Every structure is written in C-alpha cells, then in structure tokens.
C-alpha cells in the first residue's frame, strides 16, 4: 500500500527490465549483416559531419573504381535528393532516403533502401561494395548498427585536429578513420601528426587513412583498409 499517505492506493512496484533500448534495430541489423555476407558484398557505414566530403569520396570511387567493381550507395539526408543525383551522375547506382526529422539512419531504413535498389535493377549478389552514407551528424548515428562490415568515420582537415576529442563515442566505434581533403592540410594549417595522435586515443581500433577526393591520393590505402581490390594500375 501507499507509504506516502493514507490514500489506500497500491504502492509503486519496481520491476527490473534490463533490456537493450535498440534491440529491435540490433536484430534487424544482424539480419542485414547475414544477408550482406551471404551475398558476398562489403557493406560500409560512412559517417561524418555535414560537408566533410562523404559524397565527394564516393563520386571519386564511382568514377575511378566503380567501372570495374559494381558498387551501390544508400544515402541518407534530412531533405533533398541532391547527393543521390550527384552519385548517379558519377555512374553510381544510388537511392536517397530522406529521413525528415531523424538525424540518423536506422536498420529499417537501410532495408527499405535495399528494396528500392532492387527495384532499380541492382542485384545484391553482383555488388562488391554497398555504401550506406549516413546523415551528416557525429552524434546520433553512432548508436545504430546498420549491419555494416565496417564503420568509416570521416574528418576533414577544415574541421580541426581536435574534432575526434569532441565526439569520442562516434570515433570509438570506427574501424577506419579517414582524414579527408588532405590536399588542403597545409593551407588551413592542419597538423596531421597531432590529428593522428588524437584519433588513436579515441578510436583505438581504427586504421587511419589520409585522403583527397580531388587528387585521388590515399584511395588505394582506403580500398586496402576496406579489404577491397585496389585500383587498376592505369587509374
């Protein structure tokens, strides 16, 4: 009975639950992971702040690698399908998921994106690479497993060396950290060695790749980190 007053109502009862909040997403992500593995396609979850160069990186891959290696992209944004159109112009099969209010992608949205890719004639089994370009945000996407084999986090040199220290949860989950726009490092006074030190401290499992989507520098290293076939010698 209530212990606060004499109201006669039953007292609240404490019930231990201990359930993962994202259990439904995690279950769906596991199913997606199995599907990707069975199809033999490498699935990558690409995360960064807005404007760090996710789409530029994928455009470069589409133009220089995608000719010989089938790839597709599921791209998430709050609004517009600009990114998907940019990728399509670079010869990449891409579908856009506009999330509206949601600042991250969830496994269910990826399943929906896959369905739409299949509608466009993409056969999962024939792909070598499936990139899930997440919503530009370094906070919320970290908590959501999308069934990816690897999580790649981009940091552009214009964002400053200490950005990884400000978003440790996201960087902690990274398998690969890409320092993008490396061709601008000198111009903006970006200290690469310092940035690498910061990344190592918050992203202990990550391989670090310095990359420029303008010159193509570092693309081979990225492909290697993703366990994908390197560029043809003439690229």
């Amino acid at each position, binding site marked *: 009975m209530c212990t606060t007053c004499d109201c006669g109502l039953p007292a*609240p009862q404490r*019930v231990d*639950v201990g359930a993962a909040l994202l259990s439904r997403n995690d279950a769906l992500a596991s199913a997606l992971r199995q599907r990707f593995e069975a199809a033999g396609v490498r699935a990558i979850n690409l995360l960064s702040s807005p404007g760090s160069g996710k789409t530029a990186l994928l455009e470069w891959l589409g133009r220089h690698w995608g000719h010989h290696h089938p790839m597709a992209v599921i791209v998430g944004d709050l609004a517009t399908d600009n990114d998907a159109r940019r990728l399509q112009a670079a010869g990449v099969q891409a579908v856009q998921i506009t999330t509206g209010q949601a600042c991250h992608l969830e496994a269910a949205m990826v399943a929906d994106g896959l369905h739409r890719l299949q509608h466009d004639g993409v056969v999962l089994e024939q792909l070598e690479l499936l990139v899930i370009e997440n919503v530009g945000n370094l906070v919320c996407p970290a908590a959501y497993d999308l069934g990816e084999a690897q999580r790649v986090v981009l940091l552009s040199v214009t964002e400053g060396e200490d950005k990884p220290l400000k978003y440790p949860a996201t960087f*902690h989950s990274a398998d690969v950290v890409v320092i993008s726009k490396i061709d601008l490092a000198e111009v903006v006074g970006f200290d690469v060695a310092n940035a690498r030190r910061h990344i190592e401290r918050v992203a202990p499992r990550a391989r670090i790749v310095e990359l420029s989507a303008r010159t193509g520098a570092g693309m081979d290293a990225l492909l290697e980190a993703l366990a994908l076939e390197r560029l043809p010698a003439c690229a």
Partner: protein
Amino acid sequence: MDNVRELALEQARLHGASRIDGITLRIGALAGVEPEALRFAFEVVMAGSIAATAELHVQAVAAEAFCEPCHLSFAVESGLCECPRCGAISRRLLRGRELELASLELV
C-alpha cells in the same frame, strides 16, 4: 526515445500495470546518446500514455577499458583510451556503451 516508450509500455502491459511512475535508463558514456537530449524528448514522447507522469531517471555508466600491458582496468575519461599508468592505447572497452531500460516503477 520511441524505443523507450515502446519497451516501457510493453513491460507495463506484461505486468498488468495501470500507470508508470518511473523509468530508469542505463546509459554508457560512449553510447552516443546525450542524456540531456533524452530528457528533452521524454515528456513529449510519453504524453498521452500511462507513462505521461512518469519520472525519468538516468544511471550514467562510466566507460572503463582494460590495459593489456598493466593487466589492469582503468577509467576512460572523455573517451580517451590511453592507460594512465603506462600510456598504452587500449582496444578493450569493458563498459561504457550500455543503452538499456534498467527498471520501471509500476502501479
């Protein structure tokens, strides 16, 4: 936050409760979730349900990693996985990514 609502209401149904007075979440320091943002959304999401008047409690779980060379665990402050004793970078996080509904107070 929708996940919290769904899980809490489901548990309340299972226990035949008519009201939820309290919801306790366990959130790891490296879970990627801002407790303040959760608090902000809580009232809006719970409105109109049997948890509309529930209080939100957040149990923060500090991050902890294991240093192989020292064979000891250490507190991961601000996400820095560097052992304070020997300076080695640890790849073994023991705690800190929890994102759970810990308990409910049901009436």
